[in-house]
């Protein structure tokens, strides 16, 4: 993983998310009004516009909604190619971008179940990657 990744500028909305990852928790939000899960963290529910959201810990289980194998990448990521970037749909109903790691290309497909894994990619950065569940 890139050593020269630009610094992530945490803010009051994202800090609980990043702190959770450092502790091995994938934190997302749930809207107190409409009960829908929300990701990325924010101060308004994008579905019903309620201003009341609570943090929950996701199970980390999901499926691959879509994916690509990148053969060309920029900046800090150029040395990683080829790598698999996916949009994972968590079982709570939200989607997030991530990487699929430790999986042979032939086994990766849309719809495959995946499980989160917390990977320390820098001194102060833990990212939620995913592995195939089976």
């Amino acid at each position, binding site marked *: 993983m890139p050593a020269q990744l630009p610094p992530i500028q945490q803010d009051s909305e994202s800090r609980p998310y990043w702190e959770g990852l450092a502790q091995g928790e994938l934190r997302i939000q749930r809207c107190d009004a409409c009960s829908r899960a929300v990701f990325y963290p924010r101060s308004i529910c994008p579905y019903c516009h309620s201003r009341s959201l609570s943090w929950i810990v996701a199970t980390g289980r999901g499926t691959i909604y879509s994916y690509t194998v990148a053969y060309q990448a920029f900046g800090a990521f150029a040395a990683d190619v080829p790598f698999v970037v996916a949009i994972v749909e968590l079982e709570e109903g939200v989607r997030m*971008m991530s990487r699929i790691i430790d999986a042979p290309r032939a086994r990766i497909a849309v719809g495959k179940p995946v499980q989160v894994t917390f990977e320390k990619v820098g001194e102060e950065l833990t990212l939620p990657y995913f592995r195939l569940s089976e």
Partner: protein
Amino acid sequence: MGFASKAAIVGVAESDLGRTPDKTVLQLQLQAAQAALDDAGLQWSDVDALFCAGNWAWSPNLMLAEYLGIQPKYTDTTNIGGSSFEAHVGHAVAGIEAGLFDVALITYGSTQRSDRSRNRGPSAIRLTEQYDFPYGLPSPVGSYALAAMRHMYEYGTTSEQLAEVAVATRKWASMNEKAMMRDPITIEDVLNSRWIAEPLHLLDCCLVTDGGGAVVIASRDRAKNTRKAPAWILGHGESHTHNTITNMPDLATHQAAVASGQAAFAMAGLNPADIDVTEIYDSFTITVIMTLEALGFCGRGEGGAFVSGQRTAPGGPFPLNTNGGGLSYCHPGMYGIFLLIEATRQLRGECGPRQVENARIALAHGTGGVLSSAATVILGKD
């Protein structure tokens, strides 16, 4: 046919295209704007509104207007990516209808090809970038690859069908002397070109070029006294649905284009079957297939079949991207202005060997970001 439109495109032009290391974005826009005004038979002093989109200055409109020596009484910096210029057309018509100005100049310029070595990433990952940037997805191609993969999963769209778009577009480019890539290609060539981001090969991707363009829009009264036949603006629509691809509601449906297309057709009182020539933003081959579906030229999931058998190539039943598109003609970053230029020239009958016979109604559709924004313009000639 006489349209009750309030405004028309009366001047269009490109600047130098391709690789222009000796020209700045200001020079490119000056060159295109001067040529577009000449095309219209108008003067700098006629311009009373400026529309521009770019990220080459803190405020492109301030720098460009100062450089050109114009002091617009109406200005619009709407930047929603490559569809910005189709949105500008809608905004210009609205301003003209409101009586705020009579002549609008829309410009674009980019030196992205020459600048490439100087490209740098962000110095910090901020705001909503925190959730996508750390995974290294190449932008924008990776996002379109994710949409293509999902479209394939849901509808069985194939790499061969994507390649059909690239091959047909190259055939049109072969008839455009301004096109950068004019040598014929085959479906096998596309499939054998290297992966950029699965399932997109190199030849599924638009070019990276320098270049600029300009469009002049005039009110109905002013359009009567311009040099060439006006391309009347019959309908327009715009929408945006998301910023990053992760937040696109349905990766197999170009929802912004569904909305912009419906609005444009409704305003024009026309249907997809009425369109004689179509110019659709082709950042990637998948963009074209998803946009054809979204605009209603075919059903949902039928875009792959629609483009098969070279139906969109010269001589086929559906003339599409007749200048050679972003795939083969030019693509200086935000391509949307070139869609308007070609649609206008087709209506005027100025396109020589690639002229579509009896083209009376044209559609130009821009897509911006990562299938994020869309704006549709329908043009007609008297």
